[in-house]
């Protein structure tokens, strides 16, 4: 793997009325495990099913029902841990987090407070322009999702949908290593990219498959370095947790307004209290969800219905052996093997499908040209129609065919764009289309010369001007291209026009 050297980004500094303040941010990302069945029941996890149709007896907490761990969900958590270069804990355990809510039928969520399945790991968060930060992962634990309470269907009633109840979540907890709203978004994006590469979470934010709680605190310049030296949190400010955000834009905006709230509070002589807050995007503010007095006492204790979760190192090794190439490695390889720029490599490795498409197209071809075509033409065209790469009507073989026609000088770049459009909308073999439609580039210099002669003869005034000012030669080139239906080899036309005008 190519070693990429990065510079560390500067923390975001906000100037208050009295001091400059730095931001300290940590994320708790909830990622829904990609699995067919729930964490402790056989009920389906399919999104968008009829309300209360994916519910096993244990999900609705019928008396006497017991949870049984879904081994595949454990495997997915291990896979995720390995993808984050994290320590896999061969011994972990489940605890009950007790609270009452109608969409939590058991009256407790089964989670892993004391002994999570995954320990410390790290994520390389790139910010472009050669900047990147390593964000440490504190832990990943498995837990049950809650159901959905619906309060706006009836003035007097609330409704509960238990389809999501008991679906497996991974809570991925970062250290407070993130220093700006942009970094927070980049961290979330990178996590999303990794879990999608791994196939452990679909990353669908709209459906709530990935959402984040953001911890924000502020500190005076220099304090953060003391924290990093000692890992002593007392150097940092009191943090507030902003709950449940499922948009990159909201995450950044919420951090910004929360930091400013804390700065104003502290500079006005107040004190930040540790609490849970909600971000209101309409009003652009965070609001206290519950004060310290109202804070839940979750009464965590080991779930007596479940034995400690013991896994074998050999099983972990088997999973590690099947791990796909991950974004960092893939990007480095693309830069190395295909001579791509950092930027192009980032774009092309943003998701597995794009990378696969590129690699299939670029193999045996020029990497840079292929990258340009994939990024500018194909991605541009797909974006216009709101499609993603998996819905591309152009296959790698077809795009490769187009590129081959360009590099063999069979068609011009301009014709290639027309050809791409034809292939995109009508399909077909590019070489055949070029053949059938007579789109081949005219490289026959005799034919081009004849066309140039004709235009020179017909435009004596233009010839005079062009001889005085060679920059105007382009007009003749344009006329020749027009006359040949764009099929003339532009390089040849340029040369011939220049020769004839000067001759």
């Amino acid at each position, binding site marked *: 793997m190519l070693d990429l050297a990065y510079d560390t980004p500067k923390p975001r500094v906000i100037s208050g009325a009295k001091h400059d303040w730095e931001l300290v941010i940590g994320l708790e990302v909830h990622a829904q495990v990609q699995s067919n069945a729930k964490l402790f029941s056989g009920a389906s996890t399919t999104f968008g099913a009829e309300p209360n149709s994916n519910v096993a*007896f244990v999900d*609705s*907490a*019928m*008396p*006497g*029902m*017991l*949870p*049984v*761990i879904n081994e595949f969900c454990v495997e997915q958590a291990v896979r995720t841990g390995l993808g984050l270069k994290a320590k896999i804990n061969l011994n972990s355990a489940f605890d*009950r987090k*007790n609270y*009452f*809510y*109608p969409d939590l*039928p*058991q*009256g*407790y969520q089964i989670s892993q407070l004391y002994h999570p399945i995954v320990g410390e790991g790290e994520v390389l968060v790139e910010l472009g322009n050669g900047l990147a930060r390593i964000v440490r992962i504190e832990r990943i634990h498995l837990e049950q999702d809650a159901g959905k309470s619906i309060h706006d269907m009836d003035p007097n009633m*609330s409704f*509960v949908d238990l389809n999501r109840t008991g679906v497996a979540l991974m809570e991925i907890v970062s250290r407070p290593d993130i220093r700006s709203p942009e970094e927070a978004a980049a961290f979330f994006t990178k996590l999303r990219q990794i879990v999608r590469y791994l196939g452990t979470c679909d990353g669908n934010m709209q459906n709530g498959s990935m959402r984040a709680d953001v911890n924000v605190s502020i500190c005076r310049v220099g304090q953060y370095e003391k924290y990093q030296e000692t890992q002593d949190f007392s150097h940092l400010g009191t943090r507030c947790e902003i709950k449940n955000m499922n948009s990159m834009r909201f995450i950044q905006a919420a951090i910004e307004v929360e930091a400013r709230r804390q700065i104003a509070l502290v500079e006005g002589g107040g004190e930040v209290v540790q609490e849970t807050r909600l971000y209101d995007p309409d009003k652009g503010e965070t609001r206290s969800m519950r004060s310290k007095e109202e804070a839940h*006492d979750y*009464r*965590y*204790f080991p779930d*007596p*219905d*479940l*034995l400690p979760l013991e896994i074998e190192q050999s099983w972990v090794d088997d999973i590690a052996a099947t791990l796909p190439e991950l974004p960092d490695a893939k990007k480095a390889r693309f830069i190395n093997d295909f001579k791509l720029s950092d930027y192009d490599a980032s774009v092309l490795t943003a998701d597995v499908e794009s990378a696969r498409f590129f690699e299939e197209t670029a193999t045996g071809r020029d990497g840079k040209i292929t990258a340009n075509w994939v990024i500018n033409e194909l991605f541009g065209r797909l974006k216009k129609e709101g499609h993603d790469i998996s819905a591309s009507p152009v296959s790698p073989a077809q795009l490769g065919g187009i590129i081959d026609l360009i590099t063999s000088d069979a068609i011009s770049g301009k014709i290639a764009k027309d050809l791409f459009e034809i292939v995109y909308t009508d399909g077909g073999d590019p070489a055949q289309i070029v053949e059938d439609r007579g789109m081949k580039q005219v490289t026959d210099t005799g034919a081009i010369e004849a066309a140039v002669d004709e235009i020179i003869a017909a435009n004596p005034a233009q010839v005079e001007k062009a001889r005085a000012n060679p920059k105007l030669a382009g007009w003749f080139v344009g006329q020749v291209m027009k006359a040949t239906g764009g099929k003339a080899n532009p390089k040849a036309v340029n040369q011939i026009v220049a020769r004839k005008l000067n001759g």
Partner: protein
Amino acid sequence: MSDLNKLTLAAARDRLRAKDVTSVELTQACLGAIEGSGALNAFVHQTPELALERAREADVRLAKGDAPDMCGLPIGIKDLFCTKGVLSQAGSAILDGFKPEYESTVSQNLQDAGAVMLGKLNMDEFAMGSSNETSTYGDVVSPWKRGNDDAKLTPGGSSGGSAAAVAADLCLAATGTDTGGSIRQPAAFVGITGIKPTYGRCSRWGVVAFASSLDQAGPMTKDVRDAAIMLEVMCGHDAKDSTSVDMAVPNFEAMLTGDIKGKKIGLPKEYRMDGMPAEIEKLWANGADMLRDAGAQIVDISLPHTKYALPAYYVIAPAEASSNLARYDGVRYGHRAKLDAGDGITEMYEKTRAEGFGHEVQRRVMIGTYVLSAGFYDAYYNRARRVRALIKRDFENVFADGVDAILTPTTPSAAFGLGEMADADPVQMYLNDVFTVTVNLAGLPGISVPAGVDKQGLPLGLQLIGRPWEEGDLLNTAYALEAAAGFVAKPAKWW
């Protein structure tokens, strides 16, 4: 034919196989006995039609010669077991009208073996109690009386309905559950046999949970042989219960040889409590003599952490219960309080749970909530868990020294009168479990065998505690004790 309900499982089985009697006849005899037993309040839901239907099916199986040991034998099922389509309320008003869509693994195992369910048996609410006085269905009354005294006595709890029904011959046997002594204490109070197997032997799936790390189902029967027969059918690995152990179930009945020569039986000195009635002391000593006479070696042993068992139990069990019972919230099934205008979800929870749970359940939910709460968790729950580990180690040490079983009294007294403890400190009631909770905390098998009567003619039981997974050996020791004790007393029918 009228006394068919008085048969043991083994006797009835043999007569069924000899075509001497049919399951329908056995079932009708029991249904007749149940009909006249209203004063005992043992059966709370009767399922006569279902019982006769299953009896007819059993007779078909028997005729074909496809007859497992329990085939055609009428039994009662404690209300804590969920039984498909049949009310299953765990003795609680909060499960008012609850008919499960599923059958507990244990009752399914019995059904698969051809056993005939007669109905559901009364119990302390959510199995919390030692006198069967906390049930929403009212007290169970023991078939026993003190001499000529007409006072109603407790059958013990929480499996009080099961105990009374078996002792009064309303069924041939019954299921019970035991979290801190709920099979063994009532068995001792009514003069029958009750075994709590090793934790993990019987599936907990479909059994309404009280304290998950302690709950175990077991049989309550007329003698030790029946306990062996019925336990074998009830237990076995169940993938639906993560704490169920995947271990072969031996033929327990075949292990009943009565030969206990050379077995080492321990008498723990810590169980010799201050103020223990002389009758209990004497019973215990007699039991040791009987086992010695049968060829066992009696040794004094020490289980040094015994005195901490009851407090630890009354931290751990309520802690788990407070969480297990959170699901009874009025949202999905069972009782929901009528709400006033303006009431929200909090009021719904509060009113539903205040109305649906009885006082003892509320007390334990509150204790459990308290011991798990922030700031108290380490002082109570974690300390109790450490004590639990020490108690387990006490037993392990003794077994490592070659002790095969431990003999103790089952209870510190004979049955008391209903209402007699009404004004007592709840801790007085909890003391009933003092000899039995250690066994649950350590996850061991324990059996209570009737071994004598007190001076008022009430039954007294002795408890044998065995090595984990060695129920067969434990049952054989109990079998020898039973033979030596020769307990034959039966309550005079007054109901």
